[in-house]
């Protein structure tokens, strides 16, 4: 692995509607990745994940995902996680439908990163 610290968030899907959610510092779940708690230490990340797994009544399938710090909070790194912050590309459904603002703010940068070839 590279020598920069990996910054993680705990993410999952909402139990009822399946929408992507992230764990906040006060142990609640948010639909806005920027409000997620960022964890920079592997042990802490594992223990947060363990806690998340222990409230199965709210979410489904929690896992750790890498993020980086952006101006407004956590930002996804991998394109799969980027898609989870907005919804599908063929219809304006999912998060981009509920809060177009979320999309607008990160759209430009996302496009740039998804399309970087070589």
């Amino acid at each position: 692995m590279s020598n920069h610290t990996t910054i993680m968030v705990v993410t999952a899907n909402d139990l009822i509607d399946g929408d992507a959610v992230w764990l906040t510092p006060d142990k609640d779940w948010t639909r806005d990745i920027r409000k997620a708690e960022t964890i920079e230490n592997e042990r802490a990340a594992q223990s947060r994940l363990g806690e998340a797994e222990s409230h199965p009544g709210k979410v489904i399938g929690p896992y750790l995902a890498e993020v980086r710090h952006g101006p407004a909070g956590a930002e996804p790194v991998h394109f799969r996680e980027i898609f989870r912050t907005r919804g599908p590309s063929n219809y304006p459904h999912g998060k981009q439908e509920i809060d177009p603002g979320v999309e607008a703010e990160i759209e430009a940068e996302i496009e740039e990163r998804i399309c970087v070839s070589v």
Partner: protein
Amino acid sequence: MYRYNDFDNAFVRERIRQFRAQVQRRIVGNLTEDEFKPLRLMNGLYLQLHAYMLRVAIPYGTLNAQKMRQLALIATRWDKGYGHFTTRQNIQYNWPKLSDVPDILEDLAVVQMHAIQTSGNTIRNVTADHFAGAAADEIEDPRPYAELIRQWSTDHPEFQFLPRKFKIAVTGSPHDRAVTRAHDIGLRMVRNGAGETGFEVIIGGGLGRTPIMGKVLRGFLPARDLLPYLEAIVSVYNLLGRRDNKYKARIKITVREHGIEAIRQRVETDFVLRRNSFAGADQALLNDIQNSFRPPVFIDAPVNSFDVARKNDPDFDMWVKTNLTGHKHPGYAIVTISLKTPGGTPGDATAQQMQVMAELAERNGHDELRVSHEQNIILPHIHKSHVPDVYNALHAVGLATANIGLVSDIIACPGMDYCALATARSIPIAQEIAARINELKLERDIGPLKIKISGCINACGHHHLGHIGILGLDRAGVENYQITLGGEATENAQLGERAGPGFAAREIVPAIERLIHAYLARRKNPSETFLETYRRLGLEPFKVALYGEGRTRHAA
């Protein structure tokens, strides 16, 4: 169409009742996800990227107007107003809420539909030729056999925990439109020397991580022996199939590891024992089923209006050329409705479009509809005098795209826009290719060319069988697309060859365009298809078109 008997009805209702209680217990926290997951999967409920997804079985792709209307109603009442028709002839809803799913299943049960065995390591929904019962080249309608298999496999106690999922496809025509060689079991109806109907039984086909074309296990199986023989195959597989490694668990690997000869011996031995225990009950059942698949009462009427419309309306004529197929009854045609509108999502239909298709089936189509594995909808029995009306009604709701079998009639799996297993997106690639082809105005000139796109190695988009196949991968955190060439999904089914290193998302459409231009430049004459040119010339000239002369190009 087959109608549920009391047993079927009671069974489906009971399953919904159980599932409603299970969902309730999950929501209040009495069931963990680990406990609940196999239960929801048994009922077709998956978790995807942004939401749950409900996969509804459409047995052998056959629907009537009432069912199609109900699918439309469910799309409106419980989802976002559309549904996605899949390469397994099913429909998927992309946005159901967990708490609503039992009600959705109730709505399905009203029209004798369900989502059972659309997931899990069981015998999945049986698929069949989408032109069944209408095709001019057909020996016999394969759907009664498909229905027999459905009834036999549904909740079959011996086969609820197979090593892996199990897919069966049936065709009644020598022209294989059901891709029988790419299934765990493929059944191709044939006649023996005495003129009796039977099946060529193919096993061990499949795409995915290890694509293999099926092998013939039995050249002629008398139709009456179908169930005991199938049961013998699945039973041998159940015993021999590997449970230690999910990637080696499909029957194609069992066949590879043991050899077709050893499998054949075991199956034949087991078959003899099983045949006796069937004692004719299956034949009585088949008889009943066959009665519910009687051909419609076809009409005889003049077809002048059809011919006149073709002369007067060039758009209609163009659509007729691509979207109509010969029917076994004179004066009739099989109409394929393209769900591949340029710019649209392959396989998607809105609730309104579903309503219109239902209406047309009822009014002009002997109440029959089919879903094709190529993600289109078929009206199998339209009298030619009704075709102009059908066309106009389709046109009014954006369903008159004239592109069946052409470049923009692309198969694309949901990919990373929906699917949790995906490694890249497929839908936007399909959309961009279709848009580009539309701009170039070359589609008609190019002629038959099948592009198939999968968003991961699982190959739901059948990319190995595309004349041009595209596989989306994740290469170091960037979407990357690999091209295969020369695949074919017919009775001459063949796996495509990998062309070379993959392309980044923004490079893939230009790469496809270069392939098309290479074909146009090299074909012998306009009637030589892309595939024929490829077969004649091989990979090399297309490789040069993709990567340049003598250059080894490195992937993104």
